[in-house]
């Protein structure tokens, strides 16, 4: 992708990734996790800040590190890596809050032209999946490699 992104590390199944956000607030380690769900091949994507003291991961914290675009580009690249291993996997994501979900939508919108060449992208609206369209509010997102 053309947008800058952070270097990723992961365990070998590429279900847990780590990267470090760098900005005015300093270096903030972040974790991306793809979790198994009740349906085989359907994974929940979530990411958040890693608290170095407690070891906990918080997906509600707002880092304000001035690099949200680079963070989202890094998350998108992790989805590319994960789905490259098993192209039939579904990846589901929703924000921890309405505003975080909106941020995800803005992220998908930003990369839409590039990403739609490689992924089927759906948005959840009023209890139904529909093909993702820009400027439509969704409560969750689902992608799969074409």
């Amino acid at each position: 992708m053309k947008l800058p992104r952070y270097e990723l590390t992961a365990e070998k199944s590429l279900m847990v990734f780590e990267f470090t956000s760098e900005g005015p607030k300093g270096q903030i380690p972040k974790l991306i996790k793809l979790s198994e769900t009740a349906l085989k091949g359907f994974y929940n994507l979530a990411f958040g800040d890693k608290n170095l003291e407690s070891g906990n991961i918080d997906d509600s914290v707002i880092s304000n590190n001035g690099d949200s675009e680079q963070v989202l580009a890094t998350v998108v690249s992790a989805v590319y890596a994960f789905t490259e291993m098993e192209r039939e996997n579904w990846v589901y994501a929703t924000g921890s809050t309405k505003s975080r979900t909106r941020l995800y939508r803005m992220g998908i919108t930003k990369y839409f032209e590039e990403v739609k060449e490689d992924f089927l992208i759906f948005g959840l609206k009023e209890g139904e999946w529909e093909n993702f369209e820009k400027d439509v509010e969704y409560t969750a997102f689902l992608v799969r490699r074409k």
Partner: protein
Amino acid sequence: MKTIEELNEKKIPIVRIDKSLEKYKSMPIFQDKVDMANEVLRTVGLPKLVK
């Protein structure tokens, strides 16, 4: 040899493997999100794929 900039333009990133991250696979982090995903699966299911 490709430059870092050229490599970074690839859609599929270069990922460095770190075994220490394996511990997070079994940790119930983001469990509320997983529960919500399961609820969507139960109530909505998957989108219909047009072949």
